[in-house]
């Protein structure tokens, strides 16, 4: 098995500032990742295009563009379409979860979460994604 490159940077997009802060703390202090946060999909897309991260965590229920729409924008952008995206959502509707996966999401992590669990899920998804690419 070839070595998987380490996960270095994560972009988190969520309209809730408290969630953004807690997630940033958890991923940075527990996982040791470099974390950038964006309050909306458009800002997140700009950040991803200007400095592509290794992994993207995306909220679903957001004003203006919801998570599915933002994911579609990522998948339409050549420079960022291959970046693995996982949803971090409180939305429990199975049909919505199906559509998330159908559009290319690598994982769907429920809110609320434990910090250790979040880091583990993100690392697992990153590793799986890299292996699939490799």
């Amino acid at each position, binding site marked *: 098995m070839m070595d998987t490159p380490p996960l270095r940077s994560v972009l988190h997009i969520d309209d*809730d500032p*408290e*969630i953004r*802060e*807690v*997630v940033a*703390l*958890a991923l940075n*202090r*527990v996982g040791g990742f470099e974390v950038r946060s964006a309050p909306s999909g458009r800002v997140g897309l700009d950040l991803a295009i200007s400095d592509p991260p290794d992994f993207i965590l995306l909220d679903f*229920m957001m004003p203006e563009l919801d998570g599915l729409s933002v994911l579609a924008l990522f998948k339409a952008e050549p420079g960022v379409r291959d970046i693995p995206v996982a949803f971090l959502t*409180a*939305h*429990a*509707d*199975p*049909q919505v979860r199906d559509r998330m996966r159908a559009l290319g999401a690598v994982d769907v992590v*429920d*809110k*609320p*979460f*434990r*910090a*250790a669990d979040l880091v583990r899920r993100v690392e697992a998804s990153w590793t799986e994604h890299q292996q699939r690419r490799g």
Partner: protein
Amino acid sequence: MAVEGETGVRGGEQVASRRLPAAVVPALLTLLLGVALTSFGVRTTAMLAGDARSDQQRQQAEAAAETFFLALGQQLAEILEVVHGVAALFEASSVVDAGEFATFTDGSLERNPAILALEYCMWLPGPLDSNTPPGAWLERGGAPMYERGHDNMRVPLSPRPYHTPILFVEPRSYADLAGLDLAFEPKRRATLEAARTTGDVAITPRIELIQGDGGFLVVVPVGRRLVPGGTPQVDGYAIGVVRLSDVVDAASEDLRRTVVNAPQLEVEARLDDGDNSGSADSDDDTSPVVDAQGDAGITEFSATIDFGSRQMVATARAPSPARADYLDRSVVLVACGGLVLTLWSTIWVVSQINRREEVGRLVDARTQQLAASMQELAGREAQLRAIFETAVDGLLLCEKDGTIVAANPAARRLFAAAGETVLGTSLGKQLRAPLGREDRISLSDPVVGTRWVENEVILADGTGVDIELVRVGLPYTGGAMLDLVLIRDIRERKQVDRLQRQFIAMVNHELRTPMTALLGALELVRGEAVGPVPPAVMRLIVIASTSGDRLVRIINDMLDVEGLQAGRFQLVPDVVDLSDIIDEAVRANSAYAAGGGTTIEVDPLPVAHVMGDRGRLVQVLTNLLSNAIKFSPARGWVTVGLRRDGDEWVGSVADRGDGVSEDFVQRLFHPFARNDQTNARRVGGTGLGLFIARAIIEGHGGRLWYEPRAGGGSMFLFALRATRAGPDMQGQA
């Protein structure tokens, strides 16, 4: 049938029409024909008989009667002539002897009427001639020619009774004539006196004769004229006794002798009574009947015959021939045929009328039954129509090709834009599948079944609606089938459903989001990610974190229950290893168990592949373990096991707590089930965990149940069907 056809239209004429069925009409015509033929036969027979008599027999009868009357007249004339001859003889000589006689006859005996009269009157041994000695005619072989009767009356004895006897009565002996009633019977005495006075022949009324037949007397006065041209002196009377039967016999004999095949005539002859009519003697004036026949004659002839001063009235009747001789047999056959036809027709008509009446009674009974049935059917139809018209769901009756033949108000409301024009259109035109989803719905030929199928469709006016649809085949008349299509407008329900889901999603999001920040922050502090935490603060952080976890579980359980009840509980099955799931659940509960001093004892776990939703199965095991830990005594033991049982994997979680009371076992898996008799209040919980766990296991096709643990405590078991899909399974199986 025309009569019956009219029966239904003309209700008032039903009875009359049935009582005179059309079938009777030909029978009545046959009856009339039979009567006509019978009447024709009889009348024709009578006519033919009459004609035959008139044409064939009348002429014969007329000829016979004419001949008979002529002969009768001649007989009477001869009698008169004889009597006159005898009178002349006695007039010439009061005493007749052979010499006188010879002189008198002048040798011409044969032609002399007097001689002929004697021949008639006297019985002579032979013809008189000139050689007959005088007085010889008075003697006959020495035998007395006269027989002395009453007193001085001399009566010649004649062997020929039909000959007219002639008497000579001397006037001096009137008294001697008593035997003939000439002297004492007033009418006959008057006749005698008339003859004496006038010197002419007189004829008496009818008298009874000794030999039985009726007759009359011809009285001729006998006298000598003392002075020529003067009144003769009557010396006596020549009296001829005439028997009518003799006269008629002679005439009949003459008739039979002269007319060939003469019909037998029934003759009645009577003597004209003249001035003496009305006497007692004339009452019985019926002449003898000669060769009378039984049948009465139908043709009658009469004649009046004059002789002397009197008349004889004779009537001859030709008896009718035998009736059969006159009947034409063919006519008889026609008449008989007509009679038979009449009888047959009458019997047939009567039988038909009786039968018709019986049929009528049956028809009446059947009609009443039919009316009752139709009334019942009408009632049922009214009920069905009421149901059809008032049903909340749309009801359509469609032919096999989808053509709508009936629609109830609810269906027409659904197709409001179309209204009545719904009828005759096709179901596929009224309900179309949305673009791109034609594969999900085929309304032009929907599957016939009994299960409601939810579909989003486009109406004819372009409106999109959510409906539920079920199509049921209905047997129709003549073996045909119609489809009953039930359509339920679920737009309102779907709208409510959408609002509910939006609400749940909002609540879920709005609760989880702050809980996420809260629990995340507490966990970071508790893990000293942001720096050391004093022990007292740490204890408070743990309390806050545990309560937060509990709150999240309640939120999750409530959302799950809502999803189960709304039918939105979906599983994402994959091949999973139950041993991994148990390990994960044990790890998740290890901290919780350690907090209560409970030890989780896990038996050696085999690799156990099943098809399942990993997250949901972990949820089940986590719930069972947390329950076991919750209800275990301090420093208790919780045992987790996994074993193979046939084609199933059976997992178990047992505790050594107080167990479950018998009455609570019945409600153990109900939502919000809490046992208030135990320490549930103390341990808390929503009572949703077991309800959700059983729903998840049953959603996998498995079973979840409770058993009391041997030695005390509770044991929850679940069984899931093993699968061979996993590579590890092959080694285990």
